[in-house]
């Protein structure tokens, strides 16, 4: 790692002010991506501003209509929350499948969503539930937030405070995971609220997470696995790598969407 300065922020305001003071400084959440990136010398932050001690950024609040999760809530806490398992179980399942237990004991929802890895799990939940990204200064709809590979609507010195998910009638996340990294080769998040159906896909897009209008329309008409199983999703614009071609990933999308519909609760 290159040298850097370190500051443990006492509050969200303190963290933002630190980021404003030093150019090339970065907020440090769980560090499950940022620290390996620094170790490989692919990043050279001048200063890391640690968000780990800001208690206000942790926790899960459930109301009749929404679930709000603090940005520094760890995957392990999301996976293990009994209240969340009753209100929005798809999020628990998703969180419990990220990385491995040690990673889930450090990694956070805000860190994952701020990083916007094209194969990360949480972006699909945000887009698939129509979540709102709450930052230190504004609220951003998930539909406007994800802007390509590792690109988001966040400004350089903007920090996610929480993510607010509307509670659906039912939802599910199914991923075909890379057996080594357990990142999504393809992951599909499906939710239904009344006649509004959202289908968000991670792992497959060469531009990051995206919605599939054709699958959403078919499921809005008939919310059943058979409604999507025979829909062909084109491979254009999907990613190809050693783990699977664009066509392979395209094939997996309706297959996993059907499984997600089956698993919806």
């Amino acid at each position, binding site marked *: 790692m290159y040298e850097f300065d370190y500051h443990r922020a006492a509050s969200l305001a303190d963290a933002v002010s630190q980021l404003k003071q030093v150019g090339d400084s970065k907020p440090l959440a769980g560090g499950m991506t940022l620290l390996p990136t620094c170790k490989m010398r692919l990043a050279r932050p001048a200063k890391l501003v640690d968000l780990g001690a800001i208690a206000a950024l942790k926790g899960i609040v459930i109301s009749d209509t929404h679930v709000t999760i603090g940005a520094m809530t760890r995957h392990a806490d999301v996976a293990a929350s009994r209240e969340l398992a009753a209100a929005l179980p798809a999020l628990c399942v998703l969180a419990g499948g990220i990385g491995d237990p*040690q990673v889930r004991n*450090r990694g956070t929802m805000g860190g994952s969503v701020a990083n916007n890895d094209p194969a990360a799990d949480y972006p699909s939940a945000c887009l698939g539930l129509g979540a709102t990204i709450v930052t230190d200064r504004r609220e951003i709809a998930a539909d406007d937030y994800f802007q390509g590979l590792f690109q988001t609507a966040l400004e350089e010195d903007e920090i996610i405070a929480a993510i607010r998910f509307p509670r659906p009638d039912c939802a599910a996340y199914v991923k075909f995971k890379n057996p080594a990294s357990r990142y999504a080769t393809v992951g599909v998040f499906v939710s239904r609220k009344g006649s509004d159906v959202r289908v968000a896909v991670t792992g497959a897009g060469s531009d990051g997470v995206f919605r599939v209008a054709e699958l959403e329309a078919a499921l809005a008409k008939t919310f059943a696995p058979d409604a999507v199983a025979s829909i062909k999703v084109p491979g254009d614009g999907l990613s190809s790598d050693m783990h699977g071609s664009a066509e392979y990933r395209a094939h997996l999308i309706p297959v996993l969407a059907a499984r997600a519909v089956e698993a919806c609760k």
Partner: protein
Amino acid sequence: MQSVTLTINGQKVTADVEPRMLLVKFLREHLRMTGTHVGCDTTQCGACTILFNGDAVKSCTMLVVQADGGTVTTIEGVAQDSKMHPVQEAFHIHHGLQCGFCTPGMVMRTLDLLAKNPKPSEEDIRHQMEGNLCRCTGYHNIVAAVQAASGQTPVGH
């Protein structure tokens, strides 16, 4: 340099460290506690697993400064009065190791797993041990050791 104070295996330790120093490097090279291993150094293999505030984490992917004020347990702190911990005993009896390189991490991970899920099923164990790689055993005896350590009859016995 930054001053940090941690409680490691029950002992208070204070030191001045560079912000970029990894926790595992601090344990091994500053404190000379070499029971915690570095396998892959890329957050994958789990050989460097320790307990931080009771949770299993990979100490190759955590800065010492992040751990400031916290509690760390390493493999050196597991046996009491030269008597092996039941988890260590189970790995020994069920031959849950061959070369032993991954074993400190496996034991630390098992302690966290059993603290949160005292009677895990075989499926739970396999899922919950995913962050620890073993290149010798094929995992079967590791699963058996975890089952035995949780007071259950090991697979295939």
